[in-house]
């Protein structure tokens, strides 16, 4: 850009800068309006008023569309202004996340990591066991950073969490922009690629959760960025970038397993590209040494410290991949049905994602597939479209996108594809942005109405499709009243207060039976254990506390039962209510209120806590006199 400034003369270049700043201001104002609309949508949703979902989509449109159009129409945008627009976009998207639940954690995944954080803060040591997510303590990068900030700054824990994930969200967005800019050598394309990346299903929420992937994916991107910068830099600075790259991989290794593998893969791709394009003999040795060091770093951590990672990942992938074992209705269900309890449908009901969600998801995938193909075709035709250092990593990203789409088609569960896409799209977004540019045409008039219209349509479709495909699902996309079996919408103050009471007043590691959300909160906040036996469902679904049920409670050694009356009469949103629910997918109606209150007047059962709809019963007396 400085060369252009010299060529064109100062006033012209300065005017260009000022035009860019006008774009920056406009994007900032529209982004702020977008955040305002989303905050309004959240407020309407909390009171179950109409118009919430419309305000939500309008808000997202005001954030995504002007930002994307700014990059596509302002061709002479400087790197600094582009970075400014991206930073404001990152702040706006983080504000969208923050507006959902600004004063406490809401998403169930976050409580799994909150448990690790609470253990670090309580014991002052790492690696305390965490039953909700057993691998979490062995990747304590995020939690230890948060604990350090909280202790050093004497902040409340929730503030420290917000600050850390906010900084990480902005870092991820800016580093995706920087990487795509390095890959394409054009800040405007880098910025457009960032907006396209942000339309992937996990960007807005899942990769902003207080979860180890939030930090892992950020530092994985930074490691790839350092590698690309290193390859492009001159000799004295080159090695500084490579050292930074190794440090980043080291941080990822102790933060998140999959991110560390992706980081090594991305750096290896950059290294391969460098080997093919002009690396000296001496450089080749250093590439080999660097890669071996990174692989060793990740391997040592996973092999010695986090030894359960392999088994955990294998189980997770088995459950998510095609052909995963599904719950079948147990034969004993007939007995439960016969006593007139929770109506069980013999035919499995529709799962988490509705037909509309899936349609939008497929539309998003189709659009990305077309654009990535166009972009790849353009890159193949014009070899100078991508920077030499970025060709291999971009190609790797495109292959990753293709694999993700293949998995999505083959698997009924879209989660693994969405998770893979959040990594693969980092470099592939640059290729998609080049595809968008190809759609708009090379000779378009900058700022032309037609270009803006086409681009706005593309971005709107990508945003809606990406959000519909991602997490949280449609029933939890906005905050609001309690939703049975709604995971993120099943966490409210009643459950949290009960879990906090349990932590203060009941013996640690007591064994509870509870529904899924309450079980997660009890483990994470209450510091007790919960049973994940299939039989837990019968404790809630049966009408009376008969000898058979007493025997089940005794056999499992359950000491307390937490009953949440908000479950009564509601069909679970995700067709599952308990940690290991035998009736998953078979709920025709909700559990009746009578089934849930059956413990109240049973001899041997004591009510130890009552708060709003949540009651905790001590049931040890039920089997005290049994042999």
């Amino acid at each position, binding site marked *: 850009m400085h060369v252009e400034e010299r060529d064109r003369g100062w006033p012209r270049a300065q005017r260009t800068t000022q035009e860019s700043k006008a774009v920056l201001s406009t994007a900032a104002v529209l982004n702020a309006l977008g955040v*305002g609309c989303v905050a309004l949508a959240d407020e309407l949703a909390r009171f179950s008023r109409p118009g919430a979902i419309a305000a939500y989509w309008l808000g997202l449109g005001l954030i995504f569309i002007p930002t994307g159009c700014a990059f596509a129409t302002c061709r002479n945008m400087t790197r600094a202004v582009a970075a400014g627009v991206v930073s404001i976009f990152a702040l706006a998207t983080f504000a969208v996340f923050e507006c959902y639940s600004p004063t406490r954690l809401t998403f169930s995944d976050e409580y799994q990591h909150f448990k690790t954080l609470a253990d670090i803060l309580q014991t002052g040591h790492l690696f305390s066991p965490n039953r909700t997510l057993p691998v979490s303590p062995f990747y304590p990068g995020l939690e230890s950073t948060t604990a350090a900030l909280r202790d050093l700054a004497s*902040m409340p824990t929730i503030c420290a969490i917000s600050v850390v994930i906010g900084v990480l969200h902005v870092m991820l967005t800016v580093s995706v922009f920087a990487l795509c800019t390095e890959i394409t050598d054009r800040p405007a394309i880098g910025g457009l690629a960032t907006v396209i990346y942000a339309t992937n299903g996990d960007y807005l929420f899942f990769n902003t959760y207080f979860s180890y992937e939030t930090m892992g994916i950020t530092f994985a991107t930074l490691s790839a960025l350092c590698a690309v910068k290193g390859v492009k830099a001159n000799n004295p600075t080159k090695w500084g970038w490579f050292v930074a790259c190794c440090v980043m991989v080291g941080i990822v290794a102790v933060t998140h397993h999959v991110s560390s593998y992706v980081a090594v893969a991305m750096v290896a791709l950059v290294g391969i590209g460098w080997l093919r394009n002009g690396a000296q003999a001496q450089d080749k040795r250093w590439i080999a040494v660097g890669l071996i060091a990174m692989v060793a770093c990740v391997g040592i951590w996973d092999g010695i410290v986090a030894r359960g990672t392999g088994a955990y990942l294998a189980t997770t992938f088995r459950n998510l991949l095609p052909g995963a074992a599904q719950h079948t209705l147990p034969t004993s269900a007939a007995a439960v049905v016969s006593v007139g309890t929770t109506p069980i449908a013999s035919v499995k009901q529709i799962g988490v994602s509705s037909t509309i969600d899936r349609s939008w998801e497929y539309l998003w995938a189709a659009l990305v597939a077309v654009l990535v193909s166009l972009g790849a075709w353009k890159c193949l035709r014009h070899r100078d479209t991508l920077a030499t250092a970025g060709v291999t990593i971009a190609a790797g990203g495109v292959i990753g996108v293709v694999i993700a789409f293949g998995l999505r088609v083959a698997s009924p569960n879209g989660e693994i594809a969405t998770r893979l896409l959040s990594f693969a799209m980092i470099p592939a977004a640059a290729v998609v942005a080049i595809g968008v540019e190809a759609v708009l045409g090379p000779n378009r008039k900058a700022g032309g109405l037609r270009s803006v219209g086409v681009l706005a349509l593309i971005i709107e479709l990508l945003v809606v499709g990406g959000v519909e495909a991602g997490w949280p699902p449609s029933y939890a996309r906005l905050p609001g009243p309690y939703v049975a079996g709604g995971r993120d919408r099943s966490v409210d103050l009643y459950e949290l207060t009960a879990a906090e009471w349990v932590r203060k007043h009941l013996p640690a590691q007591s064994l509870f039976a509870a529904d899924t959300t309450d079980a997660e909160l009890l483990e994470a906040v209450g510091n007790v254990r919960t049973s994940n036996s299939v039989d837990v469902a019968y404790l809630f679904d049966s009408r009376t506390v008969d000898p058979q049920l007493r025997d089940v409670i005794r056999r499992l050694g359950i000491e307390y039962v937490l009953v949440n009356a908000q479950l009564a009469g509601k069909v679970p949103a995700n067709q599952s209510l308990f940690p290991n629910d035998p009736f998953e997918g078979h709920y025709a109606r909700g559990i009746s209120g009578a089934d849930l209150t059956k413990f109240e007047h049973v001899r041997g059962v004591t009510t130890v806590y009552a708060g709003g709809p949540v009651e905790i019963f001590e049931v040890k007396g039920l089997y005290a006199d049994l042999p």
Partner: protein
Amino acid sequence: MQTCRNSAGLKWAGFRRVLVAAACALVCEFMRAGVVAWLGAIPLLFVIPGVVWAEWLGIRDTVGSAVEFAVIVASFSVGNAIVVVFIVNAVGTIDTGSVAVGMAASVAIGTTGAQLCSRRVPREGRGVQQHRSEEAQDEKPIAVRKYLTAVVLTAAMLGMIAAVVAAIRNVDATDPRFISVGARIGSVQMNTDQGELSVDVSNVETVGERVWIGVTAGPALIRAWNIELGAGQMWNRETRVPVNDELKVTVRSKGRSGSIIKELRVDWG
């Protein structure tokens, strides 16, 4: 900053700006500790338009340094307002942590504000005066646009923050207000009827056992009537319980039938 004519001068200007920034941050931190902290953002509304008008009227050279100084102070004030809004108001505490974060936010925002509002110096080594004489006509509207950019950016950022703050207040307003009752030994039961709560802890029979009454939102005025202390004695208690606090009632008798706490009322606010 108009006196900077060479690279050494530029460096000194940058260094001086950082010094001023740090000094302003300190002043603002002291200000924030007082009641006037909330007024921190207000000067910005007056100062930046003032700079624009001064530039337009050509009198900026006269008032330049003072105005730039004021802009920096105002920028820091905005930084502090953000910290006040986010940390102090949302959480209700002022401590060393929020001061540290306040300092960081102040430096970041103040430096950005100062950079946006200061005169840009060409990279080519030409003196500012020479540049000004050559490009005087172009510079006036450009300078105005710079300040407008700063104003718009600041307004947008404040708007975004306002949206998040509104969300915080909204969540606080919609959180359920309820009391919860628990005891480790014995049985507790609670019935709610239009804000009037009755608690029956008739089965609590262990001496020294505490009945836990938690208040999740408040402050609340809790009145507990007819608390039996044993031997037929009755005790009425009225206690104000702050937000998220708890009232503990200790059971002092054993083996008596009937309620220990027969009635409990909660008046919110």
